[in-house]
């Protein structure tokens, strides 16, 4: 079986490779893989693009059928495994833990990305970073304010989210509007 959202990725989805196998297989859901995400050049170099890169290039939705392929979940995972790295929730062995702790001894706890490290020296960019950090701090603070409500029932959870959004909207009136625009790609 395949997901209904396939229509967003390709209008002529029946032309995608492995379509017949995917539709006839009732035991598992087949994933639609963008070939452009991982491409090996004739020189042997592997080019990796994220989903966001493809979206920016306008090649994520409404693709031609030859740019997509149906894969089983296991096959899809195998392709993306080198990018995704360790699976969430999987436990590290004692040896690995020791190795990591020895390698990180005497180093600061949080390593910021190279980009952030570079931008930190530029006052304008640093201010923008600090604005984002302030927003994150606000989100944390609101959460600590409200987590007194126990999130037992789904209704309580929904109420909590409503309350959270209301409080956050007070602090940043344009946040949800901007996020909506950003998601729409305007």
């Amino acid at each position, binding site marked *: 079986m395949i997901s209904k959202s396939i229509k967003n990725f390709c209008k002529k989805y029946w032309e995608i490779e492995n379509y017949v196998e995917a539709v006839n297989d009732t035991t598992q859901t087949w994933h639609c893989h963008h070939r452009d995400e991982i491409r090996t050049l004739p020189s042997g170099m592997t080019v990796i693009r994220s989903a966001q890169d493809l979206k920016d290039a306008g090649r994520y939705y409404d693709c031609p059928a030859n740019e997509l392929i149906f894969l089983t979940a296991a096959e899809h995972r195998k392709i993306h495994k080198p990018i995704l790295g360790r699976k969430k929730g999987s436990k590290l062995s004692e040896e690995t833990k020791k190795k990591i702790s020895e390698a990180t001894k005497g180093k600061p*706890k949080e*390593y910021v990305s190279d980009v952030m*490290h570079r931008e*930190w*020296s530029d006052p304008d960019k640093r201010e923008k970073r*600090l604005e984002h*950090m*302030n927003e994150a701090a*606000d989100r*944390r603070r609101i959460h600590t304010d409200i987590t007194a409500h126990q999130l037992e029932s789904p209704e309580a959870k929904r109420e909590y989210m409503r309350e959270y959004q209301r409080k956050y909207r007070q602090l940043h009136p344009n946040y949800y509007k901007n996020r909506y625009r950003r998601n729409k790609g305007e």
Partner: protein
Amino acid sequence: MPDLSLFWREIYRAKSNADFIAHSNLPNKKEHIEELDKHVQKLYEQIAILKESSD
């Protein structure tokens, strides 16, 4: 009593940012932490002044 929520918000922001910077490998982190500390102190002073004036 005046509304001090904005001051508390600023203090929380500055403190959490300082905490993040302190645990990072960012360049000139001491200076930035000192700046933020000064900012927090100023805010506390302003709160004290406002409280006194309201009393």
